[in-house]
């Protein structure tokens, strides 16, 4: 035990480990906030689709050899979020199919672009780290850390300020609309925030595992708590603790950061399912 502790203390002296922890905690916090909305609205598809779009965007940014990829990726992902939302609202084109098209398309094109243009000698390593985020959290530059911090603060602030409106729109969009709440504007806001969260979360867990980071804490919290506020608090706390634990385990055990965090999330989900069962009797 002391050995493990010693290792952590040792690593703590490296700035990149400290960055990783700070950024990890902030990203985990952000990604948990909209989890409930994402799970309950069709937006979960959008979230999944967007993570693939973000992968495509990274591919483009890599090929362009940008030193700071995040702004470009962010712009592309936000645009796609708006586009997907529009498509989802259009009753003629089936929303889900459109999203599947965009997401798989982005994934395919992204890989193709990387393959054709990349000058890197370790192509599959690049692709793998973009998909699973194996090292990106540990290689963040100081600028990227600052961008992450600022964006996280913005996301949390937006969520707090619009908390009640997000609740109304998520719970009953028709009622919100009928009584004069501009539901479309809030849907747009939610989509943009989701896009921001996804780009942030790519740094932590890579594009394939984002949905897990976003959805598992909310699902766990929903097993045990029955009101929106408690679920929100609980999933925020769970997400942050799982991320911390996951990062520490991955440092000590030298496992990939993203998948370790997701594994911890899954373990917690299983635990909360059990708690939920004991609390509410056996339910389907």
């Amino acid at each position: 035990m002391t050995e493990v502790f010693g290792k952590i203390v040792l690593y703590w002296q490296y700035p990149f480990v400290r960055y990783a922890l700070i950024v990890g905690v902030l990203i985990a916090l952000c990604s948990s906030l909209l989890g409930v909305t994402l799970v309950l609205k069709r937006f979960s598809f959008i979230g999944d689709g967007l993570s693939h779009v973000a992968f495509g965007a990274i591919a483009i940014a890599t090929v362009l050899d940008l030193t700071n990829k995040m702004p470009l990726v962010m712009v592309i992902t936000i645009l796609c979020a708006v586009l997907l939302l529009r498509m989802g609202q259009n009753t003629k084109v089936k929303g889900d199919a459109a999203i599947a098209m965009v997401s798989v398309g982005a994934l395919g094109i992204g890989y193709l672009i990387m393959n054709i243009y990349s000058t890197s000698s370790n192509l599959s390593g690049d692709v793998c780290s973009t998909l699973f985020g194996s090292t990106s959290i540990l290689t963040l530059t100081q600028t990227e850390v600052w961008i992450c911090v600022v964006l996280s603060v913005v996301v949390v602030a937006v969520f707090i300020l619009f908390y009640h409106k997000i609740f109304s729109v998520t719970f009953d969009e028709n009622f919100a609309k009928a009584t004069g709440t501009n539901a479309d504007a809030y849907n747009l806001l939610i989509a943009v925030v989701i896009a921001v969260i996804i780009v942030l979360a790519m740094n932590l867990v890579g594009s394939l595992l984002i949905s897990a980071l976003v959805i598992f804490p909310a699902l766990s919290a929903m097993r045990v708590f029955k009101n929106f506020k408690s679920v929100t608090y609980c999933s925020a706390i769970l997400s942050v603790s799982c991320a911390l634990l996951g990062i520490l385990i991955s440092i000590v055990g030298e496992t990939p950061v993203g998948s370790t965090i997701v594994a911890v999330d899954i373990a917690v989900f299983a635990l909360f399912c059990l708690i939920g069962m004991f609390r509410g009797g056996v339910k389907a």
Partner: protein
Amino acid sequence: MALLTCQDLSLGYEGHEILSHLSFEVNKKDYLCIVGENGSGKTTLMKTILGLQSPMGGSITMGDGLKQTEIGYLPQQTVVQRDFPASVREIVLSGCQNRCGLRPFYNKEEKQLAEENMERLGLTSLKKRCYRELSGGQQQRVLLARALCATQKILLLDEPVSGLDPKVTQEMYHLIEELNKKDGITIIMISHDIEAAVRYADHILHIGKTVFFGKTEGYLKSEAAYGFMRGDGIA
């Protein structure tokens, strides 16, 4: 000017017309009941009035300075996803949303209003419970409490008493009457309870094969009522 004027209104879904050339108006403090057979388009009409779908023809005008944010609405069915974690209090309070505008949090009066409306509908003991775990009638009451929080001028109710027990049904009718008479809130209600409709409402809109709009006394003498109330109007 009337609070709400519908002129030569046509409604339907995706090019398929359900109702056409419907004209009526609702004035301040009116109590209008919309009656008609299943599938005649009552819910569709209400959704069109609320702006949830656009009319296929004609116009709907809101007068008397009525704003969208002063409307209360009780939907016929609310499709709430399984597992939605929301307590009764959170839902009722969300009815105050339209009073907030851009203000992010509810103020004291709004919270007070939510409490009062929960009290009114006998929900105080349930306020911490999860909405999904309530019975159908209890859920209906929660949504009505939410609608009451939302309204300041006009309340649109789509079958408010369906699924309520006789006692609560009576209380509901009294409550709606009180809102109308005492608080001066305009009521537009869809109902299959034709007896209560003619007892409480001062105007009736009957839609279906025959269309009637006018005062309740006139309706009782009309052809539309004759077939409908006897029951042979139901095809």
